[in-house]
């Protein structure tokens, strides 16, 4: 077919819009020292037509649910004095990007020249930790690829003077590329021009996007205010975290038993069975986490970024812990005892404790207020009481009542601690502070807990009391009364029940988190968490 056109190429053609839009080539000043590129979004020009979103997806060939640019919709005022506020946002190419800090595989690079935060697809393992860290929900998992992807400001186009898709597509000229001096921005202008309604605290990542906002804006609420979508269940992680935590609890019991025995207390000596039961949950749980990855085959590379990523630290520490716990089991088998055993166990324990601490710190991110609480760390350690119960059962089976009451008492204390931690959480959501800047997210978590997962939440609370306190207490009673078999049965039920309770609690933990981010669209809501 004949293809007669007046122009061979549109790269050098100017569309006479007087704006950056419409043109396939762009004129921007060269970057000087300390400068970077950034987006400017003119909210007074945007009409909410979604052209930018469509153009971006078309250029990147992204599926409909993988959006590098989204248009958040908000509304405020009272008819007829209404403002429908649209915020078209892609990556803010932050000066202190959280995605980069948290990435275990060093897959994020902030380009030194352009300041563009770029994601290296090849090394990404699809752990999605960046999707938790970014307070704007910018990185998004592409399930077709098994990796996370995000806006790169069309850096490859910009580098040769071509216009990013969103900028080119906007009929209102509301999206532009500008040059910004980073230091000046942080010191003087970010506070005034870097903020927009319903966006997170700029101090988290120091975003570079400049906003032009309408004057006298009313209080705005997001279009998806009533659209509550639970976050992803992350089932492999539910099991992985609980199992490693149980393992650490059991290992602590093992270690304490060994120490007390060595100190000459009249307590039974820990056995090989106990050492095995301590390491098995971790050995099962840890590999499970790979199932959470988009690219399980690359799981080992998660240890790369120990300098800044808690995820890398967790992977290294829990990997080492599981390995050392195996060694400890081997020592019991080979009957290596004395100081050597205690020393190896102590090292294992310290690494394990650090591992669970690191594990909890993965969730202590500013972008996810419901997770970013000390209680998360406490609960992660708290789940270890099940490990105590496990060792108690073995103790009862091996040695009968002798010494078991001591361990059971400790189990009870640990269970009690977990009950208190969970109680604190319940009270926290009951008395949310409306003036808290994170109230919107926390309140949504509360609603999710109450309305979407009310049954599971009830089960979690009652089962915790039943299986962590009541049944172990009965176990003590039966043990003291010499009813060992009954005590064992009770404790087995208690352990299984407590495990279910903890799994339910962890399931809720993942599902009810509400991230910071751009306001959603009435139907599409915001990104998958």
């Amino acid at each position, binding site marked *: *077919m004949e*293809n007669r*056109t*007046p*122009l*061979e*190429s*549109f*790269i050098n053609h*100017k*569309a006479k*819009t007087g704006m950056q*839009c*419409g043109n*396939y080539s762009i004129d921007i000043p060269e970057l000087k020292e300390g400068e970077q590129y950034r987006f400017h979004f003119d909210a007074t*020009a945007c*009409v*909410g*037509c*979604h*052209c930018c*979103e*469509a*153009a971006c*997806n*078309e250029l*990147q*060939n992204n599926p*409909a*649910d993988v959006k590098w640019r989204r248009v958040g919709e908000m*509304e405020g005022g*009272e*008819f*007829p004095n*209404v*403002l*429908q506020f649209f915020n078209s946002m892609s990556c803010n190419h932050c000066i202190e990007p959280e995605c980069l800090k948290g990435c275990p595989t060093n897959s994020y690079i902030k380009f030194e020249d352009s300041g563009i935060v770029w994601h290296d*697809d*090849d090394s990404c393992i699809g752990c999605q930790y960046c999707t938790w860290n970014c307070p704007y929900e910018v990185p998004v998992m592409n399930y077709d*690829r*098994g*990796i996370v*992807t995000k806006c790169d400001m*069309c850096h*490859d186009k910009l580098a*040769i003077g*071509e216009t990013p898709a969103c900028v*080119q*597509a906007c*009929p*209102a*000229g509301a999206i532009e590329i500008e040059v910004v001096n980073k230091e000046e921005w942080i010191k003087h202008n970010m506070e005034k021009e870097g903020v927009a309604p319903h966006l997170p605290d700029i101090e988290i990542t120091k975003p570079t996007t400049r906003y032009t906002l309408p004057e006298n804006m009313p209080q705005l609420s997001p*279009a998806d205010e*009533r659209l509550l979508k639970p976050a992803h269940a992350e089932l492999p992680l539910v099991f992985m975290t609980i199992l490693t935590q149980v393992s650490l609890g059991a290992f602590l019991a093992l270690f304490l038993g060994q120490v007390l025995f060595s100190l000459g207390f009249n307590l039974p000596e820990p056995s090989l069975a106990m050492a095995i039961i301590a390491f098995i949950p971790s050995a099962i749980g840890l590999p499970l986490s790979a199932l959470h990855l988009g*690219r*399980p*085959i690359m799981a080992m590379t998660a240890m790369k970024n120990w300098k800044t990523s808690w995820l890398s630290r967790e992977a290294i520490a829990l990997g080492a812990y599981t390995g050392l716990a195996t060694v400890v089991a081997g020592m019991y088998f080979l009957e290596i005892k004395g100081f050597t055993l205690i020393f190896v166990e102590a090292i294992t324990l310290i690494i394990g404790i650090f591992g669970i601490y690191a594990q909890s710190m993965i969730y202590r991110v500013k972008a996810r207020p419901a997770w970013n609480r000390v209680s998360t760390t406490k609960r992660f350690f708290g789940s270890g009481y099940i490990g105590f119960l496990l060792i108690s059962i073995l103790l009862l089976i091996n040695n009968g009542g002798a010494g078991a009451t001591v361990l059971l008492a400790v189990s009870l204390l640990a269970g009690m601690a977990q009950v208190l931690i969970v109680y604190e959480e319940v009270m926290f959501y009951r008395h949310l502070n409306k003036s808290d800047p994170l109230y919107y997210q926390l309140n949504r978590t509360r609603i999710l807990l109450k309305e979407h997962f009310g049954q599971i939440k009830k089960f979690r609370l009652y089962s915790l009391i039943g299986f962590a306190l009541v049944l172990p207490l009965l176990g003590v009673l039966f043990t003291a009364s010499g009813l060992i078999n009954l005590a064992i049965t009770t404790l087995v039920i208690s352990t299984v029940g407590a495990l279910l309770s903890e799994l339910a609690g962890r399931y809720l933990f993942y599902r009810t988190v509400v991230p910071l981010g751009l306001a959603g669209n*009435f*139907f*599409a809501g915001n990104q998958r968490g």
Partner: protein
Amino acid sequence: MLHKIKEFLGVDIKIDKYKKADDIKFGKISKFKIPDEWVRSTCGYCGVGCGLYIGVKNGRPVYTKGDPSHPVSKGTLCPKGLTEHEMVDSNNRVTTPMIRKNGALQAVEWDEAFSYTAKKFQDIQAKYGKGAVACISTGQFLTEDFYTLGKFVQLGLETNNYDGNTTLCMASAVMGYKQSFGSDGPPASYEDFSYADVIMLIGANIADNHPILKLHIARNKKIRGKKPTIIVVDPRHSKTANMADIFVPLAPRSDLALINGLCYIIFEQGWEDEKFIKERTSGALEFKKHIMKNYPPQEVANITGIEVKELYRLAKVYASADRAMSAWTMGVNQSSIGTDTVSAICNLALITGNLGKEGASPFSITGQCNAMGTREFGFTSSIPGYRNYSSKQDREEFANIIGVPIELIPTKRGYAYPEIIEAIDRGEIKALWVTATNPLVSFPDQNRLRSALKKLDILVVQDAFMSETAQEADVIFSAATWSEKEGVYTNSERRCNYAKKAVEPLGKTMSDANIVIEFSKYFEGKYELLFKDFKSSRDIFEEIKLVSKGQLCDYSGMSYEKIEELGGIQWPCNEQYPEGKKRLYTEGFDCPTDDGKAKLLPVDWKPLSESCNPNFPLNLNTGRTVEQWHTRTKTKTISLLNDLAPEAWVELNPKDAKKLKVKSGDRIKIGSSRGSVENLIVKVTEVVREGDCFVPFHFSEQMINNLTIADFDPKSFEPNFKQCAVNIYSDNVPEGIKMEETKIAGELEEQNSAKNSNYIEELSSKKREV
């Protein structure tokens, strides 16, 4: 298996599928979709008429990119245009002709479909007369398709019961322009948006429906150095209202009164352009008398709910502007007084001298890609080339040009769209041929329409998609769609754009013109009489040029090549205006009226035929959203669009939501005396006033036209889609919102000083309460 395992393990991250690579024309684009060739064409969705390139890979469309050298869109496209390539291979396409056999549609060969239908048509016409066969066409065809279809229906089937779906969207603008200027034809250009000091958008939600026009408004500041004053007149705070410097939240369907009221103030204050009125208009005296007698500000404030001082401010802003642009779409047209409202807007422009100048015109923005094409050459409400049925000279001229006996040319327009439906219901029309339109979603009062259509002996649907109407058809003619055929579209600003064929028609589909031409061979002598020279779309275009020569919509100076080169040509295009003309009715360009002057017409506001009542105390407004196209035959399979707008919703003011005890996201039932929709999701929002609600009409799953009223403008036959009385029923308040007798009228009047008198009269006797 190995692939599955590899996929699970994440060995392959499909780099190639998501990579960019260099394209010769557009630079770095998705490598996966780099086409074998780019075909310059025009978008086939709405009346804006954006220029685009279709990327063709392996013979199918894979990409659409905005054409930066096109004067309309300058490189931009809306979300529908950007994803238009996906529409062509949608699994909703009809790829073969079909006939209903034993209750089910079955694929047949073209010959069977044509001979079966021709026989049916002939039998019916023999038994019941020629007029027993009717045709409803569209605004989606190419002009060549329209011309061919019109010629065949009027001169081949010899029935004048033929109308376009444009009656549902643009007819009021057509009739209004005819009343005021002597002919249809929008006088303005999009670039006027870039030069106007004041832009008044009346019942036009361009942010949702014509977002690319925002480009021209955005350029205004760049060109003039300051922002234009934008006035948005709409009972609903649409997305477009956010652009407004002055938002005029008038009471539903009070637009005509508002405009007349502004004319009053302008006359009263002496702000009119006397010179212009004297030289360029007729009927000024009578008009002024009518206005001054009937539309004093207080009266208008009562009707519109807009305070008197606000009316004065508006009048002043509009009248004092050097260049005032007024543009409207469906809010004005889809009204039982639509035609007169259009004339009222023209009146206002005329008395202030805002006609035929850069940045100053009354401008109707069209809905469909080629609503204009059917107006010019569709042979429905006029003889091709804006000729009148009643004029013997026009009939003769047309008959001579195309070489048919003059007796064949109808002497009057047949039934309009709603009249055709009524005639079917009466049993007068037995066969209906529907082309590229979907009445079973788009027509008001669906239940009545459905029962009428059941009375047909045969329903033939010619469409590229399996529309709701096609699903009910006895015969389907499978048509080619955008990108699969060649021809021209005319946009709102009279710009004739070239839509180039990029790919071969899918399966057993043919261009609409070809379907008609082939079909004509089954009617004795008709092909030879009408189409023997139509070998290609160019031949049809040549005949259109001949037919248009010397008329207002003059195409005689155009050619496909010239249109493509210039990025469209605004008619008239002839020896005098070889590259077309940006504006009509400029100095020295007379109106096609008897005296060459524009008419100032005394027109009147009338109250709604169905106002809110105790059973149905809410007013229902219907409209569109940017993500979807009309009845979704084209957009329902495009994932990006459906991700953003997957279903219909009802916008409800918080006060009404409170009465119904519903929150955003809850589901309700909405009903009128005609029908209802269940399971409709609620969006509680301040963009609608208390007592109003809004539902988009696109979705057959939530068919809001079950509720709308079959109330038509007597001049244009356009339905009043924007107002009807409804109620909403929630789980918590299943009996719906109730109106109650109120005790003290005076107190209420105080509260509602900003509401119109009609409203107040009603409210003073009944108050809305749960």
